[in-house]
């Protein structure tokens, strides 16, 4: 089982590829990574990493090329400390007395300009994913190693789960901004109100999202909750966004809660900080859409029967909210800039 996991979860391989290797008689050694996580000292940094182990398969920790990390692997570090760390990590006894990785590395470093063919490069780049995974687990410079996890807001998410004081309010405005962008598919800048919009997206024209509902930031808050898990004897904390009903319906309805997983959190915050819609879209788009549907179902009494139209229009450098309505005399009224 451990061997299996060493290949599959931490080694990031699939069973059938490995089986093919067996069939063709190729070496499987470079594909495994194994460390007994229960047998090592427990520290905060490690716990953080361990929490993504379930996702490790999909995160592809070894596949992300970051200059600092690859440079460290290849050059062996700049400072004295780094060099010591490097030789600790890639110790001779692990590397068959420096006969495998160290040789490939040396060949690459010494090759220089003479070797026109890049066979060394190829050999070395085969090593890289493996070494990155090794660094991810063993490097003492945890903050750098954490960058191999392709989540930008992982840290923030964990701190929110731990109920860090004051943090929730600060993140909330960013989160509202991200949700506004996710709902309307436009780069809105509104951070104080959550606008639940609906728009027609198949037009060649600029969409004009119609505002169906709006919530002030004071009506939204983050909640954490211990979800008891029957299978394990421990509680998993979960993060929720709660939305209070609109004022006129507050007596009859309860607040609506949306569970925010790490993926959703990342998706929304990336949008808030200028990310594009394609990142994590496959994982999150439908979920966000169904959250919107729920908000409209539950809170909008007759959302599309209101007399007044509120919508966003593009102006020079931003989007602004506009209103149009028809007064009793049948005259079209509206706000203009």
């Amino acid at each position, binding site marked *: 089982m451990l061997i299996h996991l060493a290949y599959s979860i931490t080694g990031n391989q699939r069973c059938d590829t490995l089986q093919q290797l067996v069939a063709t008689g190729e070496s499987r050694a470079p594909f495994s990574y194994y460390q007994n996580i229960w047998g090592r000292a427990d520290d905060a940094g490690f716990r953080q990493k361990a929490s993504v182990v379930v996702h490790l398969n999909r995160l592809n920790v070894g596949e992300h090329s970051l200059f600092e990390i690859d440079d460290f692997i290849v050059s062996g570090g700049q400072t004295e400390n780094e060099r010591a760390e490097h030789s600790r990590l890639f110790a001779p006894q692990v590397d068959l007395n420096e006969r495998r990785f160290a040789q490939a590395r040396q060949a690459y470093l010494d090759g220089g300009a003479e070797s026109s063919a890049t066979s060394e490069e190829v050999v070395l780049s085969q090593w890289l994913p493996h070494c990155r995974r090794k660094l991810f687990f063993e490097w003492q410079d945890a903050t750098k190693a954490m960058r191999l996890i392709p989540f930008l807001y992982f840290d923030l998410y964990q701190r929110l789960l731990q109920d860090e004081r004051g943090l929730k309010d600060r993140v909330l405005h960013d989160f509202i901004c991200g949700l506004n962008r996710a709902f309307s598919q436009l780069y809105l800048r509104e951070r104080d109100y959550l606008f639940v919009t609906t728009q027609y997206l198949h037009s060649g024209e600029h969409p004009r999202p119609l505002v169906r509902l709006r919530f002030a930031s004071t009506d939204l808050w983050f909640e954490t909750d211990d979800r008891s898990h029957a299978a394990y004897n421990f509680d998993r904390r979960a993060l929720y966004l709660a939305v209070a009903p609109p004022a006129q319906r507050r007596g009859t309805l309860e607040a609506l809660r949306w569970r925010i997983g790490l993926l959703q959190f990342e998706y929304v915050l990336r949008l808030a900080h200028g990310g594009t819609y394609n990142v994590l879209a496959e994982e999150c788009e*439908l979920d966000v859409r169904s959250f919107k549907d729920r908000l409209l179902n539950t809170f909008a009494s007759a959302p599309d029967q209101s007399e007044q139209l509120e919508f966003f229009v593009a102006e020079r450098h931003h989007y602004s909210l506009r209103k149009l309505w028809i007064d009793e005399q049948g005259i079209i009224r509206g706000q203009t800039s």
Partner: protein
Amino acid sequence: MNNVYGQFDENGKHALAAHIWGHRLRAGQHWMEYMLEFLGVLAGFDYQLGQGLPNRSGEANYRDEYRLPKRLGLRRFVFYDGREKTPDPRDQRATDEIRRQLHTHLPADRQHAEELIAQLRSLLRSFSAIEDDRSWYAKSLFPVHEEFLLWEALRKGSTKRKYVGDPAQLPLEQLDRGIEFFARNFFARGGELYYLMISAGTEGDRERRERISSKIQYLLKERNRALGDFARIVNGTWTALADDGDEQMIEGRVGWLPDPACPLYRQFAEDLDCFLDNNLDALESLELLAHLISFHIVCYIYHRAHPASDAEGHASGSCLEACRPHILVDLLGDEDGGVLRERSAAQLRRLDAWQIERARALITDKVAAWANEQADDRLLLDALKGQAENYFGGARTRAKQEYENRLHELNISYNSGDTSREGIVRGVSDAVFSALSADFRSNFLAAHSKLGRAIGLIAPHKGPRPRFVLGDTLLKTLVTANLQPGEVLGFGPMLQRLYERYGIIVGPGEANIAGLTARLRINEEYYIRNRNALLMRLKRAGLVTQYSDATALVSRL
């Protein structure tokens, strides 16, 4: 054709595809148009299904024709501008008049009013559903409200001739001259066909009919009223100017649908009925409805393209089983090295080939039947030629020349005794097929993949090697159309349902039943992974709750 639903023109000559798939579907039609037309026809019959059939006229509350306002004012206001493809001074003048008239509905401050007009126009314009490369009178709006329903039109000769007169001299009502709404041989009428399908599928089920039409009526009349009011005001300005406030109506008759007893139509009606019972936002609901309609049209094309499709099967109801297509959906993409993608693409090509085969079979059958009627060998060739022309209409231009040549050659070889009677029948069939196949391929064959790509049933959106997939919106649509609110269904039974109703194959179970496992010869593991990928997708979308490895329940939101 003796068994049709709708208004069949006995003397009319119809394209090859129309004889198989009804009058009519064409590849040129935009996916959104199917819904627009369907809603247009329904609204034109006052939200009554089952209208427009010839044999029932005279019954109470029964109408032969659907009636829709022309809404030229709204259309001009929204679409006619300086970038117009076919500019015309008459339209320019009409647009100016509309804008001038609109000021009676605006605040007195001129500049403020102009800004409001611009804003209103851009708001309405943001709902443009069909633009492509069309002239203003052929563009359409997304039907967020009944007032937004526009019927495709055409101005005869506008692309060839420029209008040279001085429009300022014309009375206003003449500015609309030459705009036609019913050039039968020009327009596709996929939405009409869908209206007929739903009508046929609800024959004898009055309650379902009532539910469907009242839900759609509610969707189009009661929701997004503010938008509808704006559209009415804009359109009203032109009606007041040109028609003295009494808007001219379009009057249309429906086409026809083959084999009205086919249980597939009932199934579509069930889907629609279930789908409309939702709490979604009106815009979202309409978007999903457009997906559902296009999906149904694709299913319909495949259903009738199946080699086992015949009139008896459709009449007895055995066709659901016999004509089920194999839509092998690939959810893995590159994850499995494209194994499943390859197979899925092959299924798609197979369905493509079926349609061509179906068309060829129709011709062969017909020609054989005509040959049986004509016992006199000397008259045979001429008789076949005449019948084919009567039935399908002549071939066009280049194909026509080739067709004539081929028949001429047949004539010679027949007269010289080189070719038997069977040879003639075969030869004529081939000649007719090759004369008609160019039109068939360019105007019909692409319809299914065009629709499939638009709704996320076929990927990639553009580009080579298409295959079947299930896009997010389509997935949501299918779940909504198959599960009642509050109903839960196991993931396994859901897959089975998708297979039984539409022929969608995802997991190993359905692949086995369909005989794909044996035919495609790929490891069962691929289907298992495919199924798991779908489960993951549904889970992320919140459509599935997983209780354990063995229990996952699908429910709509």
